[in-house]
């Protein structure tokens, strides 16, 4: 549990994606979201973890915003991680559930 990080400021990722991030030791604020407005999905978190990203706080990442956002570890900008979120669609790999895309994902 020591790897669990605090993310201050608003995070635009559902609770389930935030929990996954904690489990994988990823700072969700550092993940570039592929959802509408940059919303972070489970797949985004997994991609981020697989590509070796962990604790960076994404100063530029849309997933987290607000002045209180504190760089908890490396200070690397999430911009450098942008290539990680290579077009994985929101809700990818969710089996048969048609409910996996929020209204705003339909553009």
């Amino acid at each position, binding site marked *: 549990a020591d790897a669990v990080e605090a993310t201050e400021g608003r995070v635009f990722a*559902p*609770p*389930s994606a935030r*929990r996954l991030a904690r489990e994988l030791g990823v700072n969700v604020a550092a993940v570039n979201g592929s959802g509408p407005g940059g919303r972070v999905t489970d797949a985004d978190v997994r991609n981020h973890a697989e590509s070796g990203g962990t604790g960076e706080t994404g100063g530029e990442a849309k997933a987290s915003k607000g002045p209180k956002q504190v760089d908890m570890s490396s200070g690397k900008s999430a911009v450098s991680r942008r290539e990680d979120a290579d077009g994985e669609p929101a*809700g990818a790999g*969710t*089996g*048969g*559930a*048609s*409910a*996996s*895309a*929020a*209204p705003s994902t*339909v*553009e």
Partner: protein
Amino acid sequence: MVVGDISTGTDVAVIGAGPGGYVAAIRAAQEGLDTTLIERDAYGGVCLNHGCIPSKAFIHGADVAHEAGNAEELGIHADPAVDVAQMQEWKSGVVDRLTGGVEKLCKANGVNLIEGTATFADENKLRVAHGGEGQGSESIEFEHAIVATGSRPMQIPGFDFADDPVLSSRDLLGMEAVPDRLVVVGAGYIGMELSTMLAKLGTDVTVVEMLEDVLPGYEDDVKRIVRKRAEELGIEFHFGEGASAWRESPNGVVVTTETEDGMETEYAGDAVLVAVGREPVTDTLELGAVGLEPDDRGFIETDHQARTDVDSIFAVGDVAGEPMLAHKASKEGIVAAEVAAGEPAALDYQAVPAAVFTEPEIGTVGMTEAEAEEAGFDPVVGQMPFNASGRALTMGESDGFVRVVADEETGFVLGGQIVGPEASELVAELALAIEMGATLEDVAATIHTHPTLAEAVMEAAENAMGTAIHTLNR
């Protein structure tokens, strides 16, 4: 062509100003289209004038009176006298305010309003006959037409709404006094809502229903609670009996029912309310002129963009099929208007919530457990009874529950069934959860205000996950 016929052109002609039509017209105008809305009766359609709104106003009034008269346990001693004529007047005030609002909103958005009955001349032309005879008519050429002509109460053989003691829901909602005794034919949602309301206002209600239970389409444990409460209010149910005839009697009417194997029974009342369903209104339209034909049940068929088989014509609301609900009509109206404006809109919603304003209320959205199974999911179900909810108990309510249905593997919320206080409101959160593709965990992890009924939604999600605090997990 009739002499004196004026002909005008419009981008979008909307026929019928119910929640399907007026919403379509406003959105079309917002999209910058020249929009004309034609209504032959009253702005707001059935919903505002004879349906949702007047029924809920009376139900609220009946609730206030009933609750106060039955709160001895809470230390409240009252014997409310209800002046139904006055309640009617209040209800009419509410209706007038809302229908006036619809008219104002249409105008403010730049919608042209025309009073009259529209019929199709061809695929791009309507004829509008104004009011009574000799009031003239006009032609309207349109790029797109949106048909939103709604529905009317169904009649059954032998029961004609033209006869005084045979009441439709509309007749009943116009009442100046409550009947002492009423026979209600049909235990669907409209029959149940009105019966419950009347029972609270003091009417002896007898409900006859062809099927074996109330509220077809709802699950047994949901029905049971509503039926039990209705019975406690004094409503008498007779299932498996179809109304076959009625006759006048010295003090009202006698309704004859028949079972499948021919057993007849008679029930007496001051009048008989027939609430056996609603049928789409297409006979006002001369659909033949554009080559459209209603389906077996009388609906106009439409695709995922609310288009009919005729490219220039959309259909929305009750006339376009089930569920016959105001909010489904409005959604279709919005989509039709946006498609007419060239937007990539579609009827891609995941779920249409529905409410029944009985005692207690029912709110449902998405799939039941059985439906989820049928759809190929491996459903997991969580439940929270209101008798374990702090808020429910402080309201003197403990019947009912919140149930959440989800996909076991992914946790996605697939549906919810709520029966209990404010169920109609509580279902909104689950509707959003379904549309968002939220998981049980998402709902469970969202902090819910204490003490509220909405906590039960969270708790039901936790129960499905095996982590509920206020119920025992399976």
